[in-house]
């Protein structure tokens, strides 16, 4: 089966959505995102049946750039994450009215297209193009459909754009440098390179700048909370659910195998940066009054732990990181959606103005509670599997890393449950809170089902990703 079919579906979907007009846009977008999901499932079956799914077409002769896609287990896991979350995100927006909806939904599909391409690309430059392309739609989504004061939003969004572009341009220079050495942008040729330790360090740092900004890792996180808060919820979901996984995925796929010596030499520094993010994010989250900002900082803490896991260079660390990437993707989308559900009824994001929801809408309360518990990695949820594996791998490197990283669970439990208490419990609020509608319920139930199912039975995903992670580890350890 041709892997580019998924990309084509999403791209055509984006154009079709724009052409059908405002009224039908959301439904057409949902249709195309579901079609992409269906295709990806079929593709996964082909892959599991042992078929090799890759594609190489020459594109530009001089310099030699090819249109190369390759789906190994890792890429397929990320592909499934993207195409599964996209319909959920689109569907969750059905309760809102957007002006110029055709543009809005077309941009969502276009972004899904670019992110899918990033995960599948097997040519450095093609990867870079998709990576940059994903930036344009989210910029416009946050700018045009965002909330809050337009002047502040502009500042936040432009800062975000310039930050991320700055990071990725240095990655581009690194890619060009690698091309000069290897004579090709193809990933397998780049993997074969034997660079000196000094070269590797610079390349590692150039990649690190791009990824640290995208993920974000301290001290490159300053754009994040503001953009998460100002962007429309759909944009926040896309950013936190999928886009930051691009950074984490790229660390595993590109940064570590291309500069293994540097990664080993300075491993402790980068793990420490990740852990610093965990502690910083958790502490700042304690003090947040805005629900979306609180979730943003909690997300910063969780991805800090994932990043630390990737930099351990052990199979457990990588596997835990990928599991936690998927788990975090679902749970963060669920939490932001729950915040949106509350906003639809209370028209506020300020935690102190909420409360008394439990009495009025028990169903929503129980769903929200499950999401909160999943987010703090309660055993039997998917997040537990991921976070535990990562902490285990950290303890192999240095037990203090695990101890400090473990604060994410302790502090996380504290601020999430405190938030739950203020938002949901308490006396009856003056404002009425209708229970979840069927549409909202479907989105939440799907997310919860995924989290609980894989919490009990993560084996399908582990089996899918482990062989490709082992291959990457072999490349890392080849010299």
């Amino acid at each position: 089966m041709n892997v580019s079919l998924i990309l084509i579906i999403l791209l055509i979907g984006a154009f079709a959505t724009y052409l059908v007009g405002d009224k039908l846009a959301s439904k057409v977008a949902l249709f195309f995102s579901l079609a992409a999901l269906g295709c990806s499932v079929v593709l996964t079956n082909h892959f599991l049946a042992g078929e090799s799914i890759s594609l190489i077409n020459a594109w530009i002769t001089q310099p030699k750039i090819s249109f190369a896609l390759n789906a190994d287990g890792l890429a397929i896991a990320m592909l499934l994450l993207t195409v599964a979350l996209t319909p959920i995100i689109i569907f969750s927006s059905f309760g809102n009215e957007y002006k110029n909806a055709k543009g809005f939904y077309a941009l969502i599909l276009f972004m899904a297209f670019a992110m899918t391409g990033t995960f599948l690309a097997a040519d450095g430059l093609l990867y870079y193009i998709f990576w940059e392309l994903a930036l344009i739609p989210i910029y416009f989504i946050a700018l045009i459909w965002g909330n809050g004061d337009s002047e502040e939003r502009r500042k936040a969004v432009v800062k975000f754009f310039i930050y991320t572009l700055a990071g990725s341009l240095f990655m581009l220079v690194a890619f060009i440098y690698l091309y000069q050495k290897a004579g090709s942008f193809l990933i397998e040729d780049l993997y074969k390179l034997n660079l000196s330790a000094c070269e590797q360090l610079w390349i590692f740092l150039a990649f690190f700048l791009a990824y640290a900004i995208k993920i974000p890792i301290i001290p490159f996180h300053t754009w994040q909370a503001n953009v998460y808060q100002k962007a429309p919820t759909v944009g926040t979901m896309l950013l936190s659910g999928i886009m930051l996984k691009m950074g984490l995925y790229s660390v595993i796929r590109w940064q570590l195998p291309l500069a293994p010596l540097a990664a080993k030499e300075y491993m402790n520094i980068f793990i420490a940066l990740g852990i610093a993010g965990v502690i910083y994010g958790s502490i700042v989250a304690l003090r947040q009054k805005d629900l979306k900002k609180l979730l943003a900082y909690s997300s910063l803490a969780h991805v800090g732990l994932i990043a630390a896991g990737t930099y351990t260079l052990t199979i457990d660390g990588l596997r835990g990181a990928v599991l936690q990437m998927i788990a975090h993707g679902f749970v963060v989308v669920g939490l932001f959606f729950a915040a949106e559900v509350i906003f639809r009824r209370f028209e506020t994001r300020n935690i102190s103005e909420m409360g008394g929801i439990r009495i009025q809408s028990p169903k929503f309360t129980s769903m929200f509670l499950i999401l909160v518990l999943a987010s703090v990695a309660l055993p039997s949820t998917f997040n537990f599997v991921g976070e535990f594996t990562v902490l285990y791998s950290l303890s192999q490197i240095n037990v203090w890393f695990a101890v400090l990283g473990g604060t994410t669970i302790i502090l996380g439990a504290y601020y999430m449950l405190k938030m739950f208490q203020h938002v949901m419990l308490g006396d009856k609020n003056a404002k009425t809170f209708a229970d979840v509608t069927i549409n909202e319920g479907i989105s939440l139930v799907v997310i919860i089902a995924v989290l609980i199912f894989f919490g009990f039975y993560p084996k399908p995903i582990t089996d899918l990703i482990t062989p490709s992670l082992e291959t990457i580890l072999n490349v890392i350890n080849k010299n």
Partner: protein
Amino acid sequence: MNTLIAITGLGIFCLLFEILNLRKGIIPFTILGLLGVLALNFSEFGSTESYYNNMIAVSKFSTTFSSLFIVLTIFLVALSHNFYENHPTKISDFVAIKIFLLAGGVAMVSFGNFAMFFLGIEILSISLYVLAASERLNLKSNEAGMKYFLMGSFASGIILFGICLIYGAMGSFDIVEISEYSLSAELPIWFPIGMILVVIGMLFKVAAVPFHFWAPDVYEGSPALTTALMSTLAKVVAIATLYKLISALNFIPSLENQDHLATFENIIVIISIASMTVGNIMALRQVNVKRMLAFSGISHAGFMLMTLLSISTSAGVLLYYTSAYALAGIAAFSVVLYVCKNQDNEDITNFHGLGKTNPLLAAILTGSLLSMAGIPIFSGFFAKLFLFNQTIEAGFLILVIVAVINSIISVGYYFKLILAMYSKEPNQERTGKPFLIYGVAIISMTLNIVLGLFPSLVLDLLN
């Protein structure tokens, strides 16, 4: 050669139309004529011949760049219809001057003799002086014309002086003869000095720092269409000629023989860095769009100069970069022309809310700005990619890093305009959908994206 004759003939026809009172037909006729010239030019592609004692030397380089100039002129002529609506009696003059300007440009890239080179420059420059001052009753336009003329004549003088020194050193105006002599071991010092003077004159035309002071004022004061012409066609002509000058005279090998190559390269690196940095930093503060694009043009000149560092292999890259830059410029200016028609100035406030009132043109302007900023999938990205690749290969990693930092700065001002279009409320109503402006904008944007999707189409022409 035939191209040059045909273009000149077309210009004369334009003037004749005035006498025959066929003004309405001028623009369609000229566009058709230029398309014919383009076809004629294609037929010469691949042949290398010289005419009239090597006055004109047709080569692959000259034909490909001439094609680019002709395409750009077609766009500019098409935009004239709407721009000169209020001056119907002068349209033949304006169109004819543009055609003559094109003739000058073609002469400049296909010169085989310094006499022809200088003739080309003067034809191009004098046409530009006239066009800059063509809004007779506008004080700013007069100022722009005067300033450009004064500064430009000095530059011409310097070029002429340089040519004299080269003649003194080599005893010939002929490019082939000079290039043969220039490889000999012993050369009078007058040759490199003369060359540097000519290069300085050309850098003035390109508007590279520190020879850029005329550009912002002249761009701002000139009528918008002339600004479009200067920042696309004229700049591309100048940089292509500079490239040809240095490569055809074997200037780099001759410097290598004399051990002066490192000095020359340092000069180019410094000018290139200065151009992009000064251009970008000054552009950040501008509120007038024409002035902003002038500074952006200065910074792009810095990027284009990077091709001079690997002159034996970078002709294709230069062609690609100039095409990408000029097509984006044409698309951007066609929107500027539409938005700022009947306005006293071209301030950013005019663009407020364009995303709501006219999504198509706003998208095209956004696309062209993104292309200039170097965002994929627009051709501007690939232009920068190939350029950086080429320059790193030549061993100038630091220069590329400076260029990358400059690309980041440039996003700041390109996005100022994009933000104004999408995040501000519209402040004026515009009616009418001028067919030709829309056509030019759409076609140039489409070409830009096609170049981005299939870069080899252009890149491989000169490799």
